[in-house]
């Protein structure tokens, strides 16, 4: 049911672009107004969320550590899994953000007869996730060639590396293939693995399908229904230099692609996609395992009722004296 909802939403979005541009001819709305609005919503939405998170303090020092602490000098501590220095934390976070360290640890529990429980290593989710995210990054960077004139050298470098195999005309980008496969895997996994299916919501299927639709329209433009790339570049440079104008004859599919990207941008700050900025603020990962070395201050550390020693002795003084325990007041 949730899958159907997600699919309907994506189809509606595609339909909106087709109707809006193809039938109603609202090219400047879809080509100028909506992109600008989306970028504003995206950026301000993320800034708003990060500020909202930051407004709440981190009252306690609660890293989840995954390795040996720093204690006695002759016991080797784990700098990356249980860092006690800021540099170590940077390393741990870098491993987490760039290489999905924790996901790499993943195991699959199985109950065999006996019963014997096993927890074999499983890397599929990690592989799917890492291929998807890295491909997405490369594709985003490749797109810079459409917005910038002259094209930065590193973009050209990435582009040539991505098209390294030089198969097909034009060259097929490896990341186009990889991201499609990864997205399909991540989507199918949500349907096939009954545990993940049980937990999946519309907000899990929808972004996968939306990004898949973006990738599909992009791939179609590049490899099948060729669009006028020169015009698109002129349009994109105009958009990014704040001198927007609408080119005629770019092709409907481009507007569909663009509109879906806008939808993703608007959706981003209100959804689980916030995991991108959020991971930087996760207190179980971004704090050093040094809470006994350095005091962590809680700004709202309010007083609580305590049972003082005096109250305690008042209640038990006679018994304490009877047992020969020293007391403060005779």
């Amino acid at each position, binding site marked *: 049911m949730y899958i159907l909802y997600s699919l309907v939403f994506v189809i509606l979005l595609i339909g909106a672009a087709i109707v809006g541009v193809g039938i109603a001819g609202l090219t400047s709305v879809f080509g100028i107004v909506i992109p600008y609005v989306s970028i504003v919503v995206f950026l301000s939405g993320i800034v708003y969320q990060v500020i909202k998170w930051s407004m709440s303090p981190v009252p306690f020092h609660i890293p989840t550590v995954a390795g040996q*602490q720093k204690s006695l000098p*002759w016991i080797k501590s784990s700098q990356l899994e249980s860092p006690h220095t800021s540099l170590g934390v940077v390393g741990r976070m870098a491993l987490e953000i760039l290489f999905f360290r924790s996901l790499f640890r993943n195991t699959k529990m199985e109950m065999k007869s006996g019963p014997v429980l096993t*927890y074999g290593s499983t890397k599929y989710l990690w592989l799917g996730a890492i291929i998807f995210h890295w491909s997405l990054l490369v594709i985003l960077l490749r797109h810079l060639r459409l917005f910038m004139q002259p094209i930065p050298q590193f973009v050209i470098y990435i582009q040539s590396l991505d098209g390294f195999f030089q198969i097909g005309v034009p060259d097929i980008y490896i990341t186009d293939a990889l991201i499609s496969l990864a997205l399909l895997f991540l989507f199918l996994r949500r349907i096939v693995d009954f545990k993940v299916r049980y937990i999946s919501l519309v907000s899990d299927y929808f972004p996968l399908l939306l990004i898949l639709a973006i990738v599909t329209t992009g791939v179609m433009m590049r490899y099948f229904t060729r669009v006028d790339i020169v015009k698109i570049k002129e349009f994109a440079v105009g958009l990014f230099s704040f001198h927007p104008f609408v080119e005629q004859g770019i092709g409907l599919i481009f507007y569909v692609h663009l509109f879906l990207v806008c939808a993703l941008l608007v959706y981003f700050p209100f959804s689980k996609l*916030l995991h991108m900025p959020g991971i930087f603020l*996760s207190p179980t990962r971004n704090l050093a*395992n040094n809470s*006994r070395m350095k005091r962590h201050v809680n700004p709202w550390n309010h007083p609580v009722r305590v*049972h003082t020693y005096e109250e305690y002795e008042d209640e038990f003084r006679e018994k304490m004296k009877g047992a020969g325990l020293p007391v403060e007041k005779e």
Partner: protein
Amino acid sequence: MSKVKTSPEELINSINYKPTRKDWMDPAVEFKPGTYNHSGNPKNVEYLGLPNPRKWQPSDSDWQLPENWKEIILEGLRDRLHRFRSLKIFMDICVRCGACADKCHFFIGSGDPKNMPVVRAELLRSIYRGNFTLAGKLLGKIAGSRKLDVDVIKEWFYYFYQCTQCRRCSVFCPYGIDTAEITLLVRELLNLIGVNIDWIITPVANSFRTGNHLGIQPHGFKESIEFAVDDLESVTGVRVEAPVNRKGAEILFIAPSADYFATPHYYTLLGYLALFHEIGLDYTWSTYASEGGNFGSFISHDLMKSLNAKMYAEAKRLGVKWILGGECGHMWRVINQYMDTLNGPADFLEEPVSPITGTKFENARSTKMVHICEFTADLIKNGKIKLDKSRNDHWKITFHDSCNPARALGLIEEPRYIIKNSCNYFYEMPENTIKEKTFCCGSGAGLGTDENLEMRLRGGLPRANAVKFVKEKHGVNFLGCICAIDKATLPTLVDYWVGGVEVGGVHELLGNALIMKGEKERKTDLRGNAIQSTRNEENDKI
């Protein structure tokens, strides 16, 4: 300890990992005996000044909640979202990737899909979305939000008291989402409307009044320690000193109260006493701070603070230099990650230095509290104690990393170093069940009651199964650990699932091996088992 009627085979057969297609959004739960804890005793709820004391049980249909309970919960949630960045982040960024799903011992042992950590958190997240996010307010169920009603409260009670705050899921989560944090905060919310369990409320009330969870009064405490001194003498022939409430001692020693009142904890106590005597430690016990553990930490940050305050207060009153802490799991989570923040700075204490070796415990320079395993490992490394490993030759040992020392401290090698220097036969359980990936005993965070036995046995299955593996492979017959709740509950667990394995502390093993000046020939270990030392004194290294 009551016996569960179901056989291990029946329990295993009842586990089905394939969720029925029933939507998790339906909050209905069934309170079956054996799977939940009894409610907090109203007398103690009142004593602690907590809201809504009354007689009720989870199986009642009417929980007698305050009239404005919904408001209280939502206001409480809003307040906590403002006070805890962790909560906000954890509510917003989960992508439901499912990496945590099969990491929870309660899911593995029950097959109940709502025990997948992600769903446990979604039980709260769905209410958060419905009340605090735009999408949730507008789109309702499509945005994954639910309405708050009494059934949700019952469901929260059921499932947030089926989490032992072990944080195993947090190790595997790509964002480190910490279910223990969510569980603790939901329990705080439930507490606001008088929904809590007795195995937390009563120990907390006891600890508040008498200084320890068991409600042992000062004279009773002293008697227990003296009893242990007698017992130790009968095994070793050495009469040790065990000062209590002594001002001017260098070190205050605090252990979980079960160490002096329950078995097999008691043998660990004998180990501490023997060790402190042998090295001539200038220390004292305290009756006011006679509890290392902190059941307050299972339900509320405020109660945690309230109970924990006694440690520094007593250290100050007695004028000690620093504090040494015994073998306990959640106690060390509180000391390591909360104490200094809640009740510090401890500027009246000194940076801990071992009086025996001169080692500075730089890792504890602010909190000024050292773990007994750090302390003892340092003694061994510096050759300050003599150990006869062969006195533990009747044990084939494996070590259970207690959740909190492993995942809150990273105290992994210290206890192993002590075991390896005290015993000849040590075998690790499979890699994915130890260290940071260790499995909980299934009874932590206040769930270790008789009435909850079936759920405990389910939750403890992964741990027990790994013990069974090393028992069958290496003949392991001793499960070592450094947690009082482990020592209280693992015996029941391994008896049920494994059989023939004893549970005990690391300092029990050390106490067995410790060669004391002037001791008589040891005929038994600290438990009274006959032993035969094969030590050759000429080979002793100092």
